[in-house]
C-alpha cells in the first residue's frame, strides 16, 4: 500500500488536498482535506441581521448570489416576508444566471482540461481534445469567455454587479427593471441561447431537455460527429474512458429545490433514495465534528450549531464539518436536483442507483438547457408596473432558515436573532455535504466514497482518474468551510 497526497488541487474553487491510499493499482481509501478556515459564522455574531446580506455573499465568489438568496430567505423566514411575483422572478433570473455561468465555467475551464493532459497523449482523441480544451490554450475557452461575459450583462441590469450584489433582499429585489431593460434582457438571452445551441449542444435546447434515457442520449449523440459540439465531444470521451463506472456513490440525493415562481418550485425539493422521492426533513440535518479541527460537541442541528476552530484536535483532518441527513451521508448537486425533480434522463443515468462522473456532468449540461429555457419565461412574466419588493424589518427575537440551491447543490443558512442581533449563524454549503470527512460512525463523505476504486495509470503520481472524480462534483471549497 502506498499513499499519494494531491495538493494544491486546482481548478476547483478554493484550496483542497486529497490523500489517497493506493492498493493494487487503485484507490483503496481517501481522505479529503479542506485546508482553509476563515470564520464567517463567528464574525457575524453580534451584528445586525441585515448585515448578513453583505457578509454571506462574500463567502464565495462563485456562489455569491446563491449565498445571497439563502441569507435573504433565512431573513424572510425570520420576519415573515414574501417577495412579490416580480421580485421572485428577478431573483430567479439573477440566481439562474449565476448557476448557468457556473456550470459553463466548470465544464469548460475546470473539468474538460483534464482530458487534454499528457497522460492521455497516446489516445486517438488526444490531439483534438488538446486543441479544444487545453488549459489556458484551448480554443473553447476563447469562445466561452466572451459568451459568458455577455450573459453576465444580465447581472449588470438586474443586480448591479456580480459577484457580491446587495440587490437580493428578504422582500424581493432592489432593482426594478423597466420595459426597455426587459427588452435588452431578452436580447441578451437570445444571444446566449445561440451560443449554447451552436457551440455547446449543436442542437435546440428543447431537444436536449427532452432526452429521456441513456439510450436516447446515445442515439442523439450518434446523429452527428463527435466534433460537431462540445457536449458530443464529452459524450465520446466519457464513452472511451467509461466514466459511468468512475466515481460511483450510492447515497441519498439531496435537493433543497430552486427557483420559486407563482407555479411553485421549478426544481422540486426532496430526497431521492432507493428510487423514490421523499420530503426533506430539515430537522434531521446535523453537523458532526468528530474528524474536524473543531472543539466539537456532538452532531448538532444547525440552529444549535457551534463553530469552534481548534487545529490541535488530534482526530481532525479538515476544517469541513460532516453534515448528515438522519445520520446518513447525502450527495448533492445538479445530478441530485434533476433526479429529485424526476428528469427521466438523469434517473436513467444512475447506475444501480449510484451517481458517477458521467451522470454528474450530463446532469449539469442538461440543466443549462432547462434553466435557460426557464429564464426566457421568467423574463416574459415580469410586469414592470408591479412592485419588485415588499418592505419590513426583522423582529428582535426570531429563528430563520433559508434553503436554496447553488450550482453545486443544496445550500442552507440558519439564523438565530436575539435582542435584534445575530446570536448564531450557521451555513451548510453543497460541498460541505459532498466533501465532508468521516463522522463519528466512521462513514466517509460522498467524495471519499466516490474515490475508492479510481484506477492509477502506470507511472502516475497525480492519478488523472481521481482528478476527474473530484472535479465531477464541481466543488466549491471556499463555501465548504466558510
Amino acid at each position, binding site marked *: 500500500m502506498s499513499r499519494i*497526497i*494531491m*495538493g*494544491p*488541487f*486546482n*481548478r476547483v474553487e*478554493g*484550496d*483542497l*488536498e486529497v490523500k489517497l491510499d493506493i492498493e493494487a493499482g487503485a484507490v483503496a481509501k481517501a481522505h479529503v482535506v479542506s*485546508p*482553509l*478556515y*476563515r*470564520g464567517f459564522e*463567528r*464574525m*457575524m455574531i*453580534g*451584528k*445586525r441581521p441585515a448585515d448578513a446580506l*453583505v*457578509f454571506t455573499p*462574500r463567502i464565495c*465568489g*462563485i456562489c*455569491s448570489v446563491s449565498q445571497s438568496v439563502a441569507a435573504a430567505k433565512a431573513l424572510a423566514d425570520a420576519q415573515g416576508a414574501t417577495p412579490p411575483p416580480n421580485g421572485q422572478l428577478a431573483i430567479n433570473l439573477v440566481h439562474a444566471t449565476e448557476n448557468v455561468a457556473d456550470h459553463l465555467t466548470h465544464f469548460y475551464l*475546470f473539468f474538460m*482540461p*483534464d482530458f*487534454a493532459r499528457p497522460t492521455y497523449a497516446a489516445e486517438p482523441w488526444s490531439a483534438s481534445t488538446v486543441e479544444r480544451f*487545453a*488549459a*489556458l490554450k484551448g480554443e473553447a475557452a476563447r469562445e466561452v*469567455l*466572451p459568451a*459568458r*461575459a455577455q450573459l*453576465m450583462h*444580465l*447581472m*449588470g441590469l438586474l*443586480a*448591479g*454587479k*456580480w*459577484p*457580491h450584489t*446587495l*440587490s437580493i433582499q428578504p422582500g424581493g*429585489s*432592489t*432593482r426594478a427593471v*423597466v420595459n426597455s431593460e426587459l427588452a435588452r434582457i431578452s436580447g441578451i438571452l437570445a444571444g446566449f441561447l445561440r451560443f449554447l445551441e451552436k457551440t455547446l449542444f449543436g442542437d435546440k435546447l428543447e431537444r436536449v431537455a427532452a432526452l429521456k434515457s441513456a439510450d436516447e442520449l446515445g442515439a442523439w449523440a450518434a446523429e452527428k460527429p463527435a466534433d460537431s459540439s462540445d457536449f458530443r465531444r464529452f459524450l465520446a470521451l466519457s464513452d472511451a474512458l467509461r466514466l459511468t463506472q468512475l466515481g460511483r456513490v450510492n447515497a441519498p440525493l439531496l435537493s433543497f429545490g430552486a427557483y420559486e415562481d407563482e407555479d411553485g418550485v421549478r426544481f422540486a425539493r426532496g430526497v431521492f433514495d432507493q428510487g423514490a422521492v421523499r420530503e426533506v426533513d430539515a430537522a434531521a440535518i446535523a453537523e458532526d465534528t468528530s474528524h474536524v479541527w473543531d472543539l466539537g460537541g456532538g452532531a448538532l442541528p444547525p440552529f444549535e450549531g457551534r463553530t469552534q476552530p481548534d*487545529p490541535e484536535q488530534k482526530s481532525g483532518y479538515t476544517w469541513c464539518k460532516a453534515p448528515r441527513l438522519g445520520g446518513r451521508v447525502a450527495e448533492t448537486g445538479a445530478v441530485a436536483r434533476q433526479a429529485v425533480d424526476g428528469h427521466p434522463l438523469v434517473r436513467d443515468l444512475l447506475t444501480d442507483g449510484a451517481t458517477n462522473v458521467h451522470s454528474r456532468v450530463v446532469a449539469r449540461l442538461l440543466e443549462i438547457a432547462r434553466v435557460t429555457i426557464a429564464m426566457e419565461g421568467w423574463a416574459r412574466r415580469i410586469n414592470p408596473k408591479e*412592485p419588485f*419588493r415588499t418592505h419590513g424589518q426583522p423582529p428582535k427575537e426570531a429563528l430563520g432558515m433559508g434553503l436554496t440551491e447553488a450550482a453545486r447543490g443544496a445550500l442552507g443558512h440558519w439564523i438565530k436573532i436575539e435582542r435584534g442581533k445575530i446570536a448564531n449563524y450557521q451555513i451548510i454549503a453543497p460541498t460541505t455535504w459532498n466533501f465532508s470527512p468521516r463522522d463519528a460512525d466512521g462513514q466517509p463523505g460522498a467524495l471519499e466514497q466516490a474515490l475508492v476504486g479510481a484506477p492509477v495509470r502506470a507511472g502516475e503520481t*497525480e492519478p488523472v482518474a481521481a*482528478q476527474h472524480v473530484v472535479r465531477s462534483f464541481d466543488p466549491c471549497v471556499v463555501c465548504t468551510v466558510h
Partner: protein
Amino acid sequence: MKTKTDPGRSGRLSLLWLQSGGCGGCTLSLLGAEGPDLLTTFEAAGIDVLWHPSLSEASGGETLELLRRLREGEETLDILCLEGSVMRGPNGTGRFHMMSGSDEPMMSWLDALARRANYVVAVGSCAAFGGITAGGSNEVEACGLAYDGRDAGGLLGADFRAASGLPVINIAGCPIHPDWFTEALLQIAAGRLNRDDLDEWERPLAYTMHLVHHGCSRNEFYEFKASAEKLCDQGCMMENLGCKGTQARADCNIRPWNGHGSCIEGGYPCINCTAPKFEEPGHVFTETPKISGIPIGLPTDMPKAWFVALAALSKSATPARLKDNATTAQLKTPPTDRLKRR
C-alpha cells in the same frame, strides 16, 4: 538563470497567482472582463501564466515543484498576484491556511515568493488590507500583504519594495472591477506603471482618481437632497441608506460593471469596498448614522458647515419632479420641456 531585475524572458513576463483567505470572487470577476477579455489580456501583455488556481492544468506535485523553484530563485518570477487575505492565525502560526500538499503555512510561501518577485500585486481588498475576512473581531488574524487594515505593515512590512522598486500594488475592491486589473497588468507589461500612478494606499489612480459619486445617475437627487427612504427608491442614498459614494474612491459609475451596472444602479448603496476596513463601518451597512439628523460621513473634501448650509438651501429648492421620483422604485415623472407639454 537570469537575475531578478531582468525584464523577463525574451520580453515576456511570468505570472504566478495564489489564493489564500478569500472567496475567489476577484478571479470570477476577471473572467467577465471584456475588451479585452482575460486571455487576450495575457496575450497582449506577453504574460506566461506559470500557475493560476482556476485556470492552469498543473496540479499537486508539479505545482509544488514550480513554487519551490520560484522560491529558490531558480526560475524568474516577474509578477506575483495574491487574491485573498494573508491568514496569520491562530496565534501567528498561519495554520488557518496550510498550503495544501506542503505542510507549510501559505503565509510562509507568500513571504518568500514576494521577495523574489519583480512586481507584487494584491488583487482585491482582502489581499490589500485584510478585507471581509478580517471582519468582526478578526479572530483569524487576516491581513493584507502590506497593510493590516489601515496600519502599514501587513505580512511583508511597511518598507517592503519588490525587485522593481515598487511597493505592493493594491488593486482594492470587493470584488475588483476586471478592468482595474487588466489595465494595471498591461501597464506593468509595458513598463508604464510607476509610483506616481498609485495613490496613498498604493491603489492605481487610474480608478481611485475618481469618487463613486462621479457619474452617479442619482447626482441630481444628491444636489437637491431628494433622498431615498428605502432600498429600491430612486433618490440619493446618502442621507438614509448608508451610501458612501461621495467618499469612496473608485470609478464604478463611470465604468459600468457587467456591461450596465454598479451598486447604486442596482438599487443599493456604495459600501466603500475599495477602502481599508470597509468591512467594519461601525454601523449597519444600509443605514446612515446621523447626529441630530445630519449624516456623520460627509462628502470627501467638503467643510461640514458648507455641507449643512448647502443641504438646507437645496432642500428648500427641490423640484417636485425630484421629490416625486426620489421615493419610487422606477422614475415616473420625466423632465418637462417648457415649449411642449407631454
